[in-house]
């Protein structure tokens, strides 16, 4: 253990607060100034006075929240260092979803890296994670257990294509998170040569169109409401996970239900959700990626937040890193 905890970072009711910068990072309640890592709803919330994030994240927040997305915004760029009060802030890509970034905060020469959510697997819908040396590293631990070892994403998507071919008379209904997972899955399908029209639940269309407009090619996508019931068979339909077992999904009679998520690694989870076709596809770092990242950024200290903190803290401490759990509240424990 080489250095002490940074004393200029505080946990407040609103969220993580940087004292010399006078701003919050991904606050759960509205604040004066918020730095937003990415546009998922547990990180980016509406009604902040001023937000600072990537152009894509700000636009996505606008798309989702309308005028309550903020009163004032500042776009962060990769090539500049911004001074906010007594700190300088630099952004780096996080590889989690389109527009996701990390914040490197420098105060009096001490470097704090806040990763937000991240992954190291290549993803064509966003810039790849960029490691940078720091003193304190705040990492997520959504999949912070050694049992999580995400398989190759293409081989998972091949399972889906294989199942579509093997069940010609069935509708494939796949649960995906509306922002990120949906578009990544489509891109992977396209890369593997699946060029049929992919049908989307209404909740997924707005964001997917946003991706298309930003030159992320999704091919032929269409709202499922434009498809007549008699034509459901052999179609691939993507929907939010919550819709897999609700009333909406009952209109599909002969159906294979799938779910694209890192949680599909665990059979009992798959069973709990009545999933027949689990696709282990995650936008979060698995155990190996987290450890690799810790090594890459080589900090004195690692603070662990949302997810399975205990195992990671335990392991890093054993490896002589100063490490503790941040215990932030308000982040969905098991969402992806």
């Amino acid at each position, binding site marked *: 253990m080489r250095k002490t905890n940074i004393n200029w970072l505080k946990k407040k009711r609103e969220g993580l607060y940087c004292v010399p910068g006078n701003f919050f990072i991904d606050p759960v309640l509205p604040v004066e100034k918020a730095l937003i890592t990415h546009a998922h709803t547990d990180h980016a919330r509406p009604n902040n006075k001023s937000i600072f994030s990537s152009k894509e994240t700000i636009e996505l927040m606008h798309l989702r929240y309308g005028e309550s997305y903020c009163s004032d915004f500042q776009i962060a760029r990769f090539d500049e260092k911004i001074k906010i009060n007594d700190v300088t802030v630099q952004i780096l890509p996080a590889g989690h979803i389109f527009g996701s970034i990390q914040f490197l905060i420098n105060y009096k020469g001490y470097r704090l890296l806040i990763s937000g959510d991240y992954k190291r697997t290549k993803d064509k819908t966003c810039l790849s994670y960029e490691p940078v040396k720091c003193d304190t590293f705040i990492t997520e631990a959504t999949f912070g*257990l*050694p*049992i*999580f*070892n995400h398989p190759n994403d293409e081989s998972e998507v091949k399972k889906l294509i294989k199942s579509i071919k093997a069940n010609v008379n069935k509708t494939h209904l796949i649960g995906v998170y509306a922002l990120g997972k949906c578009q990544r899955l489509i891109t992977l399908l396209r890369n593997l040569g699946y060029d049929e029209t992919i049908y989307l639940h209404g909740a997924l269309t707005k964001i997917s169109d946003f991706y298309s407009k930003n030159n992320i090619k999704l091919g032929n996508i269409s709202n499922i409401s434009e498809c007549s019931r008699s034509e459901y068979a052999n179609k691939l339909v993507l929907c939010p996970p919550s819709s897999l077992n609700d009333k909406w999904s009952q209109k599909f009679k002969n159906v294979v239900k799938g779910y694209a998520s890192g949680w599909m*690694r*665990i*059979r*009992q*989870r*798959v*069973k*709990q959700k*009545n*999933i*027949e*076709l*689990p696709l282990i596809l995650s936008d979060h770092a698995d155990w190996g990626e987290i450890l690799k990242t810790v090594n890459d950024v080589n900090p004195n200290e690692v603070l662990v937040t949302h997810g*399975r903190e*205990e*195992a990671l803290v*335990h*392991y890093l401490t054993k490896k002589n890193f100063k490490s503790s759990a941040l215990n932030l509240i308000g982040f969905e*424990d*098991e969402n992806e």
Partner: protein
Amino acid sequence: MNDFVELLNDLILSPSRKKKINLLKIFFCKSNLKDKGWAFCILTNRMDRKFLSVKELKELIIENSDEDLFRFSYDYVGDLAETISLLWRTNNEKNTKINLHEFMELFSSFDQKNKLKTKLKSFLDRSSENQRYAIIKILTGGLRVGVSNGLIKEALKLSGVREKSEIEEFWHGFKLPCTDLFEWLDGKELPKYINRKKLFNSFMLANNYNSNEFKTYKTDDYIAEFKWDGIRAQIIFSEDGKIFSRNGEDITNSFCDINTFIKGYFVVDGEIVVKKNNKVLSFNHLQKRIGRKNPSKKLIDDYPIHFIAYDILFYTNVDCRTLSLIERKKYLNRFINIYKFNNISTSSLIKFSSWDQLQNIKETSLNNHIEGVIIKKKTSLYKKGRVIEGWYKWKRNPFSVDFIIMYAQRGHGKRSSFYSDFTFGCWVDEQLTKLVPVGKAYSGYTNDELKSLDRWVRNNTVERFGPVRSLKPGLVVEVSFDNINYSSRHKSGVALRFPRFTRIRWDKPISEVCSLKYIKDLIN
């Protein structure tokens, strides 16, 4: 082996019964005879040995990984085989190519645990995750892949020439590795070693009492008996007598104070209880005898077994199952009167003339160790399982008390990752300052309630002790239980029988929960 690995995986993920039967059928069709036999033995859990204990498995994974990381992971996953298969570290992962029967024969051949462990390690090292999972499940037994024996019988019926009733009759007779079962299903003769008279017979079970249904039933058509709080057993009296438990397990040795040696063949159905000085004692007393393979003389004297017989399946050559209950009762009485056992008696009939009267008897009986009454149609035949117009159980109204949730733990299997196992308690005394744990409950809530409880646990954790979370006293639950007794094993001094949640009292203040004295007063 890979077909079987795939079968297990598909079975777990198949929600419908029809699809599961179909998967089994396909597997039994395409596999070779030996693989089929072993697969059947594994799926029906009739392995004659346990290759590895849970403790040994844990040692193996800790050696391969790390004790704490294993503990965190197991707590999270909630299934040992799955945790190990995901956690196992190897540089050489590929697909093992070995037939299921070769694998089973190999592992059955080890008589030394060390050899078995070494071989297992090398198998785990060169297997895929799915294979590791299957291997561990096979070696520890108890697959929990959602396949009941009934389902397998359906699949066998579909693939062979035998009727389901025939399969039913000889189901318990086939021995490891059960290749002869599949030959028999294809039309060959029964193996010589199967002696019908030594086999366990499927039990008739009781439906739940339904007051609406019974309004229209005539009391004259039914008899009623007390439902004792013991264990269901089937005794075969013969020169090679046997006692079987509810699921067909041979428990003869545990209850050796019942004499089953008789020249002839009689199969009797009834309840095992502990009875001393002419009084049936609580289930707690019986528990001392359950699972003890060679009970000592002292144990037998302290907890003497008594068998309350209520039905007869075979009386020498008479298959009583095809007779009406009234006829069977005559045969049963004749049997008991002839042999005059000192620790076997017949279950006495309750005199009643209306359902209301029966209810009154059920609730007010002073005997603390009855669970309720069983109502049986006089004309009913003895058939397997729950039969309409057969038997009905009418339980006593349970006790119901409000408690405070104190600790929570994650569940296993279906409930893995949810905080679903709760320890609840009440106040130590009227000062309402200290709580004492009284019992544990794992059921009674709906899936939605489970999610709310899970959220509540996560938001109200005070401390963690390994997998256990200690909770801020704040949530009251209504708990029902069938009975209550003194117990020296519990800190509170009482033990509840089958506690389950009946309501979550989100609104109720903890100050309105009772003290331990009130609970103890319930015993009398």
